């Protein structure tokens, strides 16, 4: 891998008696990396650390080559960071423009003219230039998410951290979002978390799978798909040997697990690979 921009080394985090992360280790280089996992897996905790707003209890964390535990280096990271939290809050009485302008001031853009030009630039990047005068409370949920995305793009950050950016968006909005993110240049680092495998398949050069605070997989989407190679087959009904099974649009059942001999094997998708990993672990937990 080329120079890693994000280095997570055996990072742990506890909240009261719950352990959110158990010694997670992975690296991410420039380009788009996806953090895939079910709800409660620890994705938000990890992303908050990458956004410098949470410190790990144990382990080593380096972002863009700096240590966020050191005040000056933390500031240097924040100057090159764009962050879209999972539940972005808004000053509801602000217009879209005013809100992004406010964040731009927090990003130390003191020159009014240049700042307003930049606000206009990011709003048109996400396709909101026509509604910049509308109050946020008058905008739809999808538009509010775009406002949140716009503010993260201020100043063209080197590190973009997006926590479940497509949650609650309809398919057309998700497609739009993917277009915006994929336009990031190749020397920027994007880390996004999602539980939608289509986002990963469409966008990411690398993917990390997380479950219950531990990483299960680190590699390319192709490699994740290959995990399910030879382990996906179609049948008329739910197979007994299948770990997971569901009905597809054309009425057949898609089964994943250890295929019985003579089964009608099909080409696996990324989702199959993911489910196999996550479903497997879930089963192992139940058995234990």
């Amino acid at each position, binding site marked *: 891998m080329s120079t890693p921009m994000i280095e997570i080394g055996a990072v742990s985090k506890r909240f009261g008696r719950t352990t959110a992360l158990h010694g997670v280790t992975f690296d991410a280089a420039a380009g788009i990396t996806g953090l895939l996992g079910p709800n409660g897996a620890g994705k938000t905790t990890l992303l908050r650390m990458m956004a410098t707003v949470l410190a790990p209890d144990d382990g080593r964390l380096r972002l863009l080559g700096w240590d966020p535990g050191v005040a000056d280096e933390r500031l240097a990271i924040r100057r090159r960071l764009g962050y879209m939290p999972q539940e972005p809050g808004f000053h509801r009485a602000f217009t879209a423009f005013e809100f992004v302008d406010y964040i731009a001031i927090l990003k130390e853009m003191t020159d009014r003219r240049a700042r307003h030009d930049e606000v206009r630039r990011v709003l048109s990047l996400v396709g909101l*230039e*026509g*509604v910049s*005068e*509308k109050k946020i409370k008058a905008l739809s949920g999808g538009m509010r998410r775009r406002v949140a995305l716009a503010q993260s793009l201020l100043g063209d950050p080197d590190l973009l951290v997006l926590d479940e950016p497509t949650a609650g968006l309809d398919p057309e909005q998700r497609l739009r979002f993917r277009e915006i993110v994929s336009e990031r240049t190749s020397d920027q680092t994007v880390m996004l978390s999602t539980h939608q495998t289509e986002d990963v398949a469409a966008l990411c050069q690398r993917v990390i799978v997380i479950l219950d605070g531990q990483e299960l997989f680190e590699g390319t989407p192709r490699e994740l798909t290959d995990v399910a190679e030879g382990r996906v087959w179609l049948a008329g009904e739910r197979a007994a040997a299948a770990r997971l099974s569901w009905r597809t649009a054309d009425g057949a059942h898609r089964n994943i697990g250890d295929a019985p001999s003579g089964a009608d094997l099909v080409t696996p998708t990324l989702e199959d690979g993911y489910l196999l990993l996550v479903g497997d672990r879930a089963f192992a937990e139940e058995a234990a």
Partner: protein
Amino acid sequence: MTVRADGDDALLRAVAQGDRQALEALYRRHAPWLVLRLSRRCADPGLVEEVVQDTFVAVWRGAGRYRGTGEVPAWIWGIGIRRLIDRLRRQPATVMRPSRDDAIVVSAEDEVLVGVEHGDLGTALGRLSPELRAVVQATVLDGLTTKEAATLLGIPQGTVKTRAARARRELREALA
């Protein structure tokens, strides 16, 4: 005359709703003639540009207050000319451009053209001196008050009144 009155009205209604594209459409349609018309009343191009800018900002902010139909250009002109007068009041600049006297020799053809639009009035206007004509233009065509005309032309209000009276007399005589 071709009138697309509901086009302008509809655009202005959209602007009142916060539609930026509608404002731009209005701008592309009306800014050109506004610039030219204001330039004939003020020799300072920088000032004219600022006034046009202020006018369309005022259109954006005041679109909701427009209560008319088919009179949008006149409304825009009203805003524009009054902004110009406000500015001139604060900093009296070089006022009227020297009027074009050379073409006062109106050709027969032009007479016909002008005559079709304004009848004998056009010819009669052409016979007035430039100062009188300027007052008529300001008070009659631009619809300004005596005070506003005085600021625009850079002359005392009393002079505006006297010149307007003289112009009226001369026009009456010419049209009699």
